[in-house]
């Protein structure tokens, strides 16, 4: 009689653990998805800024055509990119293009004093730091998910219900690459 109770007890414990683990997977997966859509929102915001920035800089430095074309092309490529990896590489191009654009702007004191440009610059810095923060949150959640998928015993539940690993969003940090002290 006694062994039967023990077997039933163990089975119940395993079942409870299974339900908890399954729920944890669902929760983390939701957070990963939310993290990704946050990144998406911020990237879109940056796409929207680029034409305005290019137009404003053009007004003062019309001959820097290569720079404008580079950033515009990078933007178009990034909008068309599919999947986490290709998206990250395309965004690096956009970041590089924007750096060039801002470097050009550095040479024009009148442009740097333009109020419209200053507002766009704040918007760009703000958006890029939000991209960095969204990436940070997303990658943290992916780390948690991948650890759970990869380690026992939660791995069993992952296999059973098909929870898979997700890819990290690895981009160059547009804001905190080399440390700047005074912004």
């Amino acid at each position, binding site marked *: 009689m006694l062994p039967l109770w023990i077997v039933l007890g163990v089975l119940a414990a395993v079942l409870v653990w299974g339900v908890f683990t399954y729920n944890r997977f669902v929760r983390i997966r939701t957070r990963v998805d939310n993290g990704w859509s946050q990144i998406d929102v911020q990237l879109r915001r940056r796409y929207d800024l680029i034409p305005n920035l290019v137009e404003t800089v053009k007004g003062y430095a019309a001959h820097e055509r290569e720079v404008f074309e580079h950033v515009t092309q990078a933007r178009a490529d990034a909008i068309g990119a599919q999947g986490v990896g290709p998206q990250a590489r395309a965004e690096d191009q956009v970041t590089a293009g924007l750096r060039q654009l801002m470097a050009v702007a550095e040479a024009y004191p009148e442009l740097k004093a333009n109020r419209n440009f200053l507002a766009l610059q704040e918007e760009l*810095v*703000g958006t890029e730091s939000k991209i*960095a923060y969204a990436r940070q*949150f997303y990658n943290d959640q992916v780390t948690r998910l991948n650890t759970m998928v990869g380690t026992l015993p939660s791995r069993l539940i992952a296999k059973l219900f098909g929870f898979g690993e997700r890819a990290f969003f690895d981009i160059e940090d547009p804001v905190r690459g080399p440390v700047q002290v005074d*912004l």
Partner: protein
Amino acid sequence: MYEQIAANRRKTVVLLVVAFVLLVGVGYAIGLIFGSGWFGLAIAIVLAVLLQLSAYYSGDRIVLASTRAREVSLEEQPRLHNIVEGLAIAAGVPKPRVWVVPEQAPNAFATGRDPQHASVAVTEGLLATMNRIELEGVIGHELAHVVDRDILYGTIVATVIGAVVLLSEFFMRSLWWGGIGGRRGDDRGGGAVDLVLFAIGFALIILAPLFGQLIRLAVSRNREYLADAQGAMLTRYPPGLVSALRKLQAAPTAMRSANNATAHLWLNQPSRVEGERMSTMERLFSTHPPIAERIRRLEEM
């Protein structure tokens, strides 16, 4: 982090229960003086329930109003809004409402009952003295309070215990002015009422430092260290907050709206006295660890 949230929930419940018992006890005692303990008890229960409900649901509005904070739009303060939104994304919480307090001392606080109903307020002085990275450090610290639910506990402490402190300050002032200048010719009718009010006021004045002490006990200085560390984890850049704290160390701390009830909510302990750093009384009620120690711990990270 999750232990911190659970601990804050527990502490909030304990605080509400203790405050409830205390208030009802005082009500019963006052009732006894008037000849009907049960009547006093009934009134005290109703008042205590009202006080606690309003502390929970509108404690944030009470605290914000007491500092005369004003909600600012994205257009008014784009940089501040961008930083708050960015760090809220990093912390995985909704973006809190953003307020500016008309004070020249650089300082900041967060309030609200949960991340869905949170507010972050900074002083005009903070916006004027901090650069972007330092501001990020400060907001990171405040968002750590939001994530940990320190805001709920801190706000309830401010409004429930603070109610007593505020009342006693009110009585103290009215006694002071009444005792010296006024008091001509009001001995005619209300002698007994005056006496009772005087007794309540006197009791409150004796109790107030005790309650101030209670606040000090209730808010452990550890939560500031913890929020510093978590804030730095959010920004991934501890030197930002370090540099901000250095500036705070050098800046004046006097604030017009400083009081014992809300002191513990601020990033840096506000001072009531212009010029002098902190009065003896305030050092006694110090709710914050010394800034030098906070900087040291951050630099070790």
